[in-house]
Structures are given as structure tokens and as C-alpha cells.
């Protein structure tokens, strides 16, 4: 070993040490910047959704505001009070006022949490209806979507680990085919088989009517019993969508050198599969999860209708069938906000799992 070589190696090490101090804060900043830019994007989408919500009734043929006022008058036998009329016109359009001042007024009303009064349950404020329905949907859709994701991705990891095996050639096409069956039809079949024929589960509703909603055991036990079949339905209909993509990512990851190296290290198979291959292969699935939430919610909302589940989907169904425009608008707005929130959560999970957190979208 010659002297200059040693010197140069130490020099290199020192240089590495200096670099360490310089790099650390930079890394933190990238992560936060990345999350920040995502947050900014979601705020922008929120604004777009609110603006769409403002324009949709104004662009529709006919005069939704007039229709709402008429419907209220019919229900009540008299014209609604002037402040209600004003609020309706802010939400649905007033041909006598310039668009911009309408828009400002509309935003102001939203800031105060005023989403108007429901027509079908006049004069209950829409916000109260939504507030009652949202937790049901959050629990039902949230739980089942996460369960379906875990099952689908898990299955994709297992079949992708040994591509071409019989398990892969059967499971992968099968789950893809299951993935395209409409949710609500699966729900109908489930009700028919498990609730009507076998009597294992209640036919409809979200909780037992002889319990008092709140934090008490009989109510919660009932809610669990009522929720089981809807959850199972949504899980069954949506897990298949994850299998194919996750399998392909897994197959691609298996040819990476770090997986080869992990095998060369003599690590047990499950460790190579989970810690080396799957940890990396599931990152794109998490990105896709964020993107897919919006679509998944649609199917889940329809499932609620089949089960008459007291969530946002059923509220929307009820509102559409009774032409309850204020409730329709509010449901859309709240669903959008929830989906964006879920997106942000998925992004944060991604940041936790991928130390690189580079812009991958």
C-alpha cells in the first residue's frame, strides 16, 4: 500500500463527512417542499370544484333557482322568507345580478358554511344532512377501500413474485375480470344471497332501529353487523383493480439488481420478497391509490344505495330522485373535499415510505 493512496482515501472520507452535514437539511426541505406543492395543488382543485359548483346550476337549461323556490313554496304552501330566497339565488343564480358579484356572494356564503336548505326535508339546512351522512360514508368507504387495497396489493405481490406459475395464470386474469363487475350489481347479488336467502345479514340500513345512535355498545355492535355486508361487497368489487398493476410492478422490480443482491446475501425468500422487492414495487401503487380514490368512491356510493346505507351515496340518490338541488350540490362539494383529503393522506404515506420522494407524478 503506497502512502498517497491512503492519503487520498482519507481525504475522500472527510469530504464525505462534510457533505453529510450539508445534505441533511436539504433533504428535509425537499420532502416538505414536495408535500407543500401537493397541498397547493389540492387547494387549487378545491377552488376548481367550488367554482364548478357555482357554474353548474347557472349553465343548466331552465332556472334551477326558480325551481327550488317553487318546490319550497309547494311544500310549504307559501313563499319562503326573503332571506332564504336570497340565499337560494346566491347558490343557484340570479339573472338580475352580474356574475362576478354573484360569485363573490357565493364564496362568502360558503365561508359561513351555508349550503342552503334542503327541499326534500324542508327546512332542514343541507349542512346538517351532510354532517349526519358523512361519518357513515367515511367509515364504510374508507375501511373498505383500504382493506381492498391491502388485499389487492398483497395478492399482486404474491403472484408477481413467481410470474408464470399456475397461481399467477389463474389469479391475475380472474381478479382483473372481477374488477370490472359493477359494484352495485355485486351488492344486489350479495343482498339476495346473504340477506334474503341465507338471512345472515340485515337487508338494508346502517344500524338497528331499536338502538340509539351514539357511543353505546348496542348501537356500535348493530352498526358493525349492518356494515359487514356493504364492506365485503366493496372489498370484493374493488380489490381486483390493484392486483394486475401491483403484479406487473413486482415482476419489473424482480429484475432489479438489489433483489438479485438480496438473494445472493442468502436472506430467506420471504424477506427478499417483502423487504427488498415489495417495499419498492408498492410505491407506484400508492401513487395510483391517490389517483384512484375519486373513481372508487363513485362505485362505493352506488353500493350505499343498494343497502339503503345512511351515507352520502344514499343522500345523493334521495336528492336526485326528489330534485333536491341544494343537497346534490353540497354532497358533491363534500365528496370532493373528502377525496382530496384522502389524496393528501396517501401522498404523506408515500413520503414516509420513499426516502427519495422525487416528483414521480
Amino acid at each position, binding site marked *: 500500500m503506497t502512502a498517497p493512496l491512503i492519503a487520498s482515501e482519507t481525504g475522500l472520507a472527510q469530504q464525505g463527512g462534510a457533505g453529510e452535514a450539508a445534505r441533511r437539511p436539504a433533504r428535509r426541505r425537499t420532502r416538505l417542499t414536495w408535500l407543500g406543492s401537493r397541498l397547493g*395543488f389540492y387547494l387549487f*382543485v378545491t377552488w*376548481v*370544484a367550488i367554482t*364548478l359548483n357555482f357554474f*353548474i346550476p347557472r349553465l*343548466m*337549461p331552465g332556472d*334551477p333557482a326558480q325551481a327550488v323556490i317553487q318546490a319550497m313554496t309547494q311544500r310549504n304552501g307559501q313563499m319562503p322568507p326573503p332571506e332564504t330566497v336570497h340565499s337560494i339565488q346566491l347558490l343557484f343564480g340570479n339573472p338580475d345580478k352580474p356574475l362576478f358579484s354573484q360569485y363573490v356572494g357565493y364564496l362568502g356564503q360558503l365561508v359561513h358554511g351555508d349550503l342552503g336548505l334542503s327541499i326534500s326535508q324542508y327546512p332542514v339546512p343541507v349542512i346538517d344532512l351532510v354532517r349526519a351522512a358523512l361519518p357513515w360514508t367515511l367509515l364504510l368507504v374508507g375501511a373498505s377501500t383500504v382493506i381492498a387495497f391491502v388485499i389487492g396489493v398483497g395478492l399482486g405481490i404474491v403472484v408477481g413474485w*413467481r*410470474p*408464470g*406459475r399456475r397461481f*399467477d395464470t389463474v389469479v391475475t*386474469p380472474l381478479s*382483473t*375480470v372481477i*374488477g*370490472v*363487475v*359493477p359494484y*352495485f*350489481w*355485486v351488492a*344486489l*347479488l350479495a*343482498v*339476495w344471497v346473504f340477506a*334474503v*336467502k341465507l338471512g345472515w345479514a340485515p*337487508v338494508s340500513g346502517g344500524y338497528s332501529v331499536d338502538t340509539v345512535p351514539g357511543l353505546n355498545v348496542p348501537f356500535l355492535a348493530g352498526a358493525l353487523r349492518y356494515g359487514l355486508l356493504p364492506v365485503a361487497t366493496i372489498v370484493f368489487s374493488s380489490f381486483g383493480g390493484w392486483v*394486475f398493476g401491483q403484479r*406487473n410492478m413486482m*415482476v*419489473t422490480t424482480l429484475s432489479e439488481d438489489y433483489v438479485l443482491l438480496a438473494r445472493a446475501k442468502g436472506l430467506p425468500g420471504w424477506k427478499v420478497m417483502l423487504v427488498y422487492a415489495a417495499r419498492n414495487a408498492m410505491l407506484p401503487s400508492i401513487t395510483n391509490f*391517490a*389517483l384512484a*380514490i*375519486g*373513481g372508487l*368512491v*363513485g*362505485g362505493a*356510493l*352506488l353500493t350505499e*344505495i*343498494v343497502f339503503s346505507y345512511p351515507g352520502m351515496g344514499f343522500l*345523493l*340518490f334521495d*336528492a*336526485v330522485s326528489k*330534485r333536491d*338541488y341544494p343537497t*346534490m*350540490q353540497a*354532497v*358533491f362539494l363534500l365528496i*370532493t373535499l373528502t*377525496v382530496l383529503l384522502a*389524496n393528501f393522506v396517501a401522498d404523506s404515506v408515500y413520503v414516509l415510505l420513499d426516502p427519495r420522494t422525487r416528483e414521480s407524478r
Partner: protein
Amino acid sequence: MVRRLLKDWKVRLGVAVFAAFCLLALLGPWLTSALLHQSPTRLDLNAVSSPPSSKHLLGTTASGQDVLAQLVTGTRESMLAGLVASVLGTFIAVVVGVTAGLAGGIVDSALTGLTNVFLTMPGFALIFVISGYTRGGGPVVIGIIIGLFGWAGGTRALRAQAMSLRNREFVLAMRMLGESRWRLAMSEVLPHLIGWISAMFLGGFVGGVLAESGLAFLGVSDPSTVSWGIMISDAQQGNALISGMWWWFAPPGLCIALLGASVALINFGVDEISNPRLRGANRALVKRAQEASRAKEVSHAR
């Protein structure tokens, strides 16, 4: 390419089922009236809620309509909605994706942003609300709404493809020759994207059929038409579940599932062939090779 595709059993099965549905949509209504002498709307009051029989092959609804006739008519309506949605959605996706990919710069950023907004927003909820206002529309109206708000899915992939094409030599050379971008896009870039676009179109088609059935189930479509979604919705309203009339609600859902499965199988096979790495090795061949080597060793040892 086509011949290789048709060698795959999944693709063959998918194409066969899909073609059968297309034929049914084209000729179905004529077949039902000419061969079965049934109409989807005529009420047979002598056979209300009757299970499948020789007279009504798939039974009747609670008001005495022939389920098979409805199913066949529904094929046309549902597929029409899917077609309209897919044509419109694919068109928008191609215009936005290819323009973004080819133009680059600020146009690209703006269009990508637009795509991401549509992608992130719960499109289905939006479509619900809009069709809640326009309720009573037929399959074409519903298809238009679905296409207008559901195009974002494939756009990102198209943009990426167009972008990679942009820097290929032949496109660069054409641009040097002063070919306009528009003509370039039409004559050189689009043909290279045909595979992607057709996969998108098929996917959008099934998405459209699914969305239409969902909207019909929600009760926003024209109740005088008959589509698969309306059939399921009617069956649900008519208490078909409680009274166990499976022949009413099961067939339309099965049709949607079959149509979706056929497209899934086609795209599945295309994916495998265009990306052979994903297929995994042919286990049989590998095993045979391993066994041959083992046998050789044994004889060697002797």
C-alpha cells in the same frame, strides 16, 4: 402482430365475446321481434313475474315485460352510451395528451395541470350531479356527459408517449423539413400511438357502459328507454330481490360483467405481448431444460 394476438387464448375469448355483444347490439332488436315475437315494452299480463319458461326464455318482470327482449334492447342502448362516452372521451384525451406532449413548455404545463385536476376530482360524483340536472336524458346525453368528464384517465400515458416520440429522429427530421406541427401530429405521431389509443378506447367503452349503468341505477336516465342499468334499477325498485326474481336482476349485471371481462382479457393479452418481460418464463420449458440437465448428470455419474 394481430396474428400473434389471436394466438393468445385470452385475446381470442375476449374478441369473441366482444364481437358477440356488438352483433347483438346491431341485430338484437330485430332478432327478438322476428324470432321470439317479443317486445321489450309489451306487457304480458297473463305472465307477471313469471320465472323463465318456454314462452319467456328469461322470464318476465313484475309488470309482465319479457326480460330477454329487454336485455337485448338494453344491449343496444348501453353500448350506445358506452360508444358515445368512449369516442368523446378518447378524442379529448388524444387532443389534450398529444398536444401537451408535442407542444411542451407552458402549453404542456397547463394541459397537464388540467388533466390532473380532472383526474383528482371525483369524476363520478360530478357526473352524478350534472346528470341530476339534465335528468331524463337518453343514452346519448348520458354518454356525452360521461365522455366530457371522464377523459383524464388515459391522457397521461398518451402525453408521455407523444413526448418520447417528439424527440425521435424521424419527427425531428420532419420538423427540420418545415412540416407543420399539426400535420406532423396527424401523419406521423398518431399512427404510432394507435395501440395506446385503441386500448384506451376499449377501456373507455367499458367505463362508459359501467358509468351509464350506475347513472341509470341512480335514476337519472330516461325511464322510457331500456338499458342494462335501467333494468337493474327497475328490478331493485320492483323488489325483485325480496321476491327472489333473480332472472330479472341477474342477467343485465352479468352482461355488463361479461362485456367488461372481454375487454379486460383483450387488454390483458395485448399487454403481455407488447411487454413480454411481464409474462414470466415459460415454466414448462424451464422445467424441461432443468430435467434434461439432471438426466444428463445422472448418466454422466454412471
